[in-house]
């Protein structure tokens, strides 16, 4: 078997809160293969957000090892982590986090600000990403003219433009109604079919149902890690090009 995309070995994270120490993660080990669609579940306080932040290189573990594409990144400096976030990781957040008063296209182009990709290619990739989420007709709209679903689709397009190794979706449907939620999840599922690795954080079972594998956390530890049956409306494995 090829090297896994992500390999976590005994990741621990301790927060100091004044005098007391709080262990958010108590030794998590996890492997994610390329093309996986993983849902991390757990009640609040289970450490799923912390795990997500560490996986997303927004935070560093207190101890343990984190290999991304076989490269140890747990101990990298801020500057290098920023580069990894830019090139390897796409984020979709619960609270959308688009830049206000900018057009859809401009929002999708933001990650390029921190890269060195030629302008023509930027436009090409942005247009392609907007096409994938079905927003090509809205690209000149300002974000305040969009519905919640359209905003989240813009965020998904933005997470795609750098061709990241993984897409992290942190409660992507938390602010959406159930119909829109399923729309968004279908898009994510389709992207996974097309070969994108997706890690989803959610506490809703029907949202997690879109994933191929569910990891449950409780009190900073993995309590279960199960593969799911493929959804009926989806083809299973899609071969990589």
């Amino acid at each position, binding site marked *: 078997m090829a090297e896994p995309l992500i390999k976590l070995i005994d990741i621990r994270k301790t927060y100091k809160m004044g005098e007391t120490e709080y262990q958010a993660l108590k030794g998590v080990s996890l492997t994610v293969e390329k093309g996986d669609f993983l849902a991390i579940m757990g009640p609040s306080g289970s450490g799923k957000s912390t795990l997500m*932040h560490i996986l*997303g290189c*927004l*935070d560093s573990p207190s101890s343990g090892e984190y290999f991304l594409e076989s490269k140890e990144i747990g101990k990298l400096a*801020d*500057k290098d982590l*920023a*580069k990894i*976030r*830019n*090139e390897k990781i796409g*984020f979709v*957040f619960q*609270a959308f*986090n688009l*830049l206000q*008063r*900018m057009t859809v296209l401009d929002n999708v182009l*933001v*990650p390029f*600000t*921190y*890269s060195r990709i030629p302008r023509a290619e930027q436009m090409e990739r942005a247009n392609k990403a907007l096409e994938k989420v079905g927003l090509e007709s809205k690209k000149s709209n300002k974000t305040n003219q969009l519905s919640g679903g359209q905003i989240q689709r813009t965020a998904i397009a*933005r997470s795609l433009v*750098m061709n990241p190794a993984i897409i992290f979706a942190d409660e992507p449907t938390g602010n959406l109604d159930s119909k829109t939620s399923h729309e968004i999840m279908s898009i994510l599922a389709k992207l996974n079919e097309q070969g994108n690795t997706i890690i989803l954080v959610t506490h809703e079972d029907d949202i997690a149902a879109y994933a191929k594998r569910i990891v449950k956390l409780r009190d900073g530890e993995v309590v279960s890690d199960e593969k799911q049956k493929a959804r009926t409306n989806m083809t299973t494995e899609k071969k990589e090009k």
Partner: protein
Amino acid sequence: MRSLVTNKLRTFLTILGIIIGIMSVITLLNVGESAQNSITNSVNSFGSDLISIIPGKIDVSSITGIVLDKPFTVDDVRALEEHDALYYGGVAAMNAQGLMTQYEDKTRRYTVDGIYGDYFTLRNMEIAYGRNFSNEDSQSLARIAVIGPKVAEEYFGEVQLALGKKIRINGIPFTVIGVQKPKDAVPFMDPNEIIYVPLGTYQKLLTGDDSVQIIYANSKSTDNMEYAQREVTLVLRRHRGIASGEESDFSIQTSGEILSTINQITGIFTLFLSAIGGISLLVGGIGIMNIMFVTVRERTREIGLRKALGATNRDILLQFLTEAVVVTVLGGIIGTILGVLLTYIFAAVANLEPVISLQSVSMAVGISAAIGLVFGIYPARQASLMSPIEALRFE
């Protein structure tokens, strides 16, 4: 950058301090420079080889700054004339006062100069029509006058009509024998609006006082100014019976010295007033810093998002620093434009040739950029050091 555009009013109010500061500095520097230029020109128009001698010692502890023991008289001027001078050439004397003058039914107040010796030559002035008067005219108390071209126009309509006409000064009729060629105006004094009469006549008939206000001499060569100055001093000291070792009871200055004194004074003024402008800039800068803190706080989530999308601390720092600098430079440019306009207005009012120094403009833009950097760096640094997780959670 976008937030600058969307918060137009806030941005404008923020940079108002910078605008006012830069505007005042630009105006003051350039008006100062214009004034200095005009003064330099007017002093130079007197002739750079000119030596001026005024009676009295300069004494900073007295109210007027000058202690006057013994005034000059025409005798002092004659002593200089009679001396077989090696280094100085012409000698002249002048008294001046504003007096009521009259021609037919027109009455005007003009500066009347009582002059003696080579005054016209020393002050680089020429006669356009008619003739000049001589020292004999002064001795014989001749009631004759040479008038400035503007006086001639005012009284006679045309300059050519002036010759032979009688104007009254303090009620005493004087015959116009010459009209002076026009000369460039200098601030606060127009040399074309002066009436010249012989010094003797002036003293006896107009003021009844035989003192001389100022004596002029010129150096034969500008290279020997110092020697000429020393020679004049020696002749006057001997004539006035001042023992060696005793201080002279008169003060002597060359054009160059007068210029540097004036420049020093205007320089101090300009510096002082610019410092006030500088305070305004400082206050403006603090305003910028304040608004940058507000902006950073308002955009905490944006900072978190940008970091998540790959912005390094440095990227965030530069983003906010750039915004601060763009705002202040914008203020600097607006302030510069207003300052230049104000300089032109001031110059027009004060009858100055406006001078806009490129140096002051580039300095203003440079200073405003520096203010952006200095006052923007702390808020920008605060933004750059935010943890992305905390920033994303910020409500």
